[in-house]
């Protein structure tokens, strides 16, 4: 797949400051106007092992990771051996001259001479930014801002090191033509999926976030905790996931927009709470960041293996909505939509992400916050007559939700089947009516469902179906194949549930060949589509080794499925 993007892989041990240099580099590149997309691959350990931080940069929007490596920045020798086979024709490797590595595509840096042991990553940063032809001042400023909290002395040292490396690199004659300048991403934001979800939640009026640490969702809690005091949000690390979701339900019942974040194993412990939220009709937003299972599985890798689990989590029958963002922009806006639906339909709403998207830094245009309103929890107190009936039977199934203590009206909610007043009942006629009332809310959710995103030819040779984080990879594959003259359509789901047949069926029938692309082993989305539309997608490109789906992977897969 020939393309003009540059793929920079920084490799080394955990604890070598990969993330630091990576994040600064990303900001420098974006500030210089290039679009960027980061893929992080790390092991479940704190020191040692082998991790990579991969930045793909381009003059136009970068939507997916790529496999071929153009610049390999090796922070340790092991990295060279592990990745040199991926080096592209024009690519090269940045190494320490001291390692005695002898590839003809090596740029040997005198890290040793510079006494850079502690700050090797800073020097490396200088070398790469110089080679990319970035502006020295911009790089220095970006680094300074990043290290803002450090003491002046350390900052000085870092600056010195960077200058040294930068100048050295500029003098090297190396056959790497600088990328053509771009202004695409000038003053874009740089954030990952977790950041965008946190920000989306804050703009929605989030007041309570509870969690129990679990990769890859933990950073949402970290981000929110850092802003808790200034934004007026309670961020509570619970004793376990059961407490986390029950606290959030309590906080939401009391009137605060509430969210929890976790991954598969932690979510498993929240399942009973999901059913409680549904029964008490308490709004709650649940971020479920997938990682490979079963059980503990691969804690620091990615997968899309929990679609069916989330779709059916919780005993009993009740409405829900499930979103699966595929971009930073969707992480932000779908989180907002989740809060809105949770509040208006008094139901649990899910945001289904995965490890890849969670910590994939990307550039994105800033959001116009002025136009974005927070949700207003609860119904109008004045409008209620006595006796107040929290679960009054209504046409659309949504009953007036007062907040306890906000008026003289008493608010009663019960996990048992209950009367309109919320009190426990065993009246089976009421039972049936309550089930019907709750399920009627599903119609409202259906009415507001986001149709899948459809791109490309009306009557394609091939239609690619995807959901969530694979969006970009599929788009890229589509345009690549089109460039080769094929007629391609893409159908991408950013909302998985409710799934409305009439919005999609025609598309399926329009295609000569349909392939479903999923990050799991059994094709869960394909099954769901058949269940809801009757259309049977037989060809699949599936990945379940813990790595994100790349355009190259899909193309290889397509050649196998024999499309």
């Amino acid at each position, binding site marked *: 797949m020939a393309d003009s993007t540059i793929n920079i892989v920084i490799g080394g041990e955990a604890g070598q400051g990969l993330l630091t240099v990576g994040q600064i580099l990303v900001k420098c590149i974006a500030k210089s106007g290039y679009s960027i997309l980061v893929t992080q691959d790390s092991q479940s350990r704190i020191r040692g092992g082998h991790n990579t931080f991969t930045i793909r940069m381009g003059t136009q929007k970068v939507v997916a990771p790529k496999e071929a490596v153009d610049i390999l920045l090796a922070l340790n020798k092991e990295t060279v051996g592990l990745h040199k086979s991926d080096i592209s024709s024009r690519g090269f490797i940045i190494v320490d001259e001291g390692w005695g590595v002898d590839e003809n595509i090596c740029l040997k840096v005198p890290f040793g001479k510079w006494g850079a042991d502690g700050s090797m990553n800073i020097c490396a940063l200088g070398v790469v930014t110089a080679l990319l032809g970035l502006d020295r001042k911009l790089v220095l400023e970006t680094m300074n801002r990043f290290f803002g909290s450090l003491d002046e002395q350390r900052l000085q040292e870092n600056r010195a090191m960077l200058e040294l490396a930068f100048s050295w690199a500029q003098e090297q004659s190396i056959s790497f033509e600088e990328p053509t300048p771009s202004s695409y991403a000038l003053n874009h934001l740089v954030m990952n999926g977790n950041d965008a979800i946190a920000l989306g939640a804050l703009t929605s009026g989030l007041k309570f976030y509870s969690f129990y640490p679990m990769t890859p969702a933990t950073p949402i809690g970290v981000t929110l905790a850092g802003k808790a005091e200034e*934004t007026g949000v309670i961020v509570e690390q619970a004793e376990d996931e059961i407490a986390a979701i*029950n606290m959030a339900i*309590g906080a939401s*019942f009391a009137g605060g927009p509430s969210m929890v974040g976790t991954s598969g194993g932690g979510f498993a412990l929240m399942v009973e709470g999901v059913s409680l939220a549904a029964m008490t009709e308490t709004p709650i937003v649940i971020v479920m960041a997938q990682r490979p299972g079963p059980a503990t599985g691969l804690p620091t890798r990615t997968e899309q293996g929990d679609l069916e689990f989330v779709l059916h989590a919780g005993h009993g029958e009740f409405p829900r909505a499930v979103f699966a963002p595929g971009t930073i922009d969707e992480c932000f806006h779908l989180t907002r939509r989740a809060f809105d639906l949770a509040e208006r339909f008094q139901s649990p709403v899910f945001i289904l992400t995965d490890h890849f998207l969670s910590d994939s830094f990307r550039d994105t245009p*800033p959001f116009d916050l*002025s136009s974005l309103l*927070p949700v207003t929890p609860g119904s109008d107190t004045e409008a209620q007559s006595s006796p107040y009936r929290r679960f009054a039977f209504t046409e659309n199934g949504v009953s007036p939700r007062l907040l*306890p203590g906000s008026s003289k009206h008493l608010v009663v909610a019960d996990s048992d089947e209950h009367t309109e007043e919320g009190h426990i009942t065993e009246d089976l006629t009421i039972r049936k009516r309550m089930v019907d009332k709750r399920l009627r809310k599903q119609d409202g959710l259906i009415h507001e469902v986001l149709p899948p995103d459809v791109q490309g030819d009306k009557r394609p040779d091939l239609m690619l179906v995807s959901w969530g984080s694979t969006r970009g990879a599929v788009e890229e594959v589509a345009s690549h194949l089109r460039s080769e003259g094929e007629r391609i359509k893409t159908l991408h789901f950013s909302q998985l549930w409710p799934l409305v047949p009439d919005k999609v069926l025609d598309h399926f029938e329009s295609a000569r060949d349909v392939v479903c692309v999923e990050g799991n082993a059994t094709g869960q989305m394909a099954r769901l589509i058949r269940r809801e539309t009757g259309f049977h997608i037989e060809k699949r490109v599936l990945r379940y080794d813990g790595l994100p789906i790349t355009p190259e992977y899909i193309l290889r897969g397509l050649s196998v499925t024999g499309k």
Partner: protein
Amino acid sequence: MTTIDDYGNYETAWCPGCGNFSILKAVKQALADSGLAPHQVLIVSGIGQAAKAPHYLNANVFNGLHGRSLPVAIGAKLMNSALTVIVESGDGCNYGEGGNHFLAAIRRNIDITMVVHNNQVYGLTKGQASPTSPEGFVTKTQPQGVASSPFNPVTVGVAMKAGFVARGFAGQVDHLADLIRRGIAHRGLSLIDVLQPCVSFNKVNTFEWYQKRCYPLPDDYDVKDWEGAMKMTTQWEDKIPIGVIYQSDRKTYEDHFPLLKEGPLVDREIDRAVIQQIMEGYR
């Protein structure tokens, strides 16, 4: 001025003679004596016979899952500090299924009052052993008798230096009502473990059994003396002390967060400018 009548009188699903009736009365009395109107109160319960109690009085109620009343109560209290939040549920609910939340709640010391209907048995599910059932207690699921040593919530509460640890007896309603009132008045987590006869399933710890053993702590008892309190909590077989067993003015959870001192969080407007600033931070 509120009276016990403001808290209403309702039909219950309890067995005649159950200890729950007097606990319900004591709770209502305590709320009235605290000068609280029903809409200022939120009672959170789990599932069990005890957990049905909040349906039998006037208040805001969240009757949640078995074992999970504490986390719900904590979330609600943090969101609206103006509410007086009471957790009312059984021994199985609070010390069995909910044991982990019990430990965490003591450590957090949030201003919530726990009233535990401790009948030393699982009532609603027809009489299995609960964490507080005595060793050797015979049930249909423990035909050879309970093999574990019983959980003593008061001992653990004092050991962990909970802010307010008391034991009451359903047979002494006024004394109990006063304990609950004091628990509500106390800032921080208050535990009131209430000895409650279950006429249907606990034929060992009957009304008479408790009656014979329960005695109020002497006036000169020092609730601040931790070592003395620890020792006191071990009294059981022939004499059972009731009253406030330990009290400390530990910092509450709320004290740690300036945010929580500015009044109920639920009333706070969100500040767009701050969020704008946060977003700018991502440039």
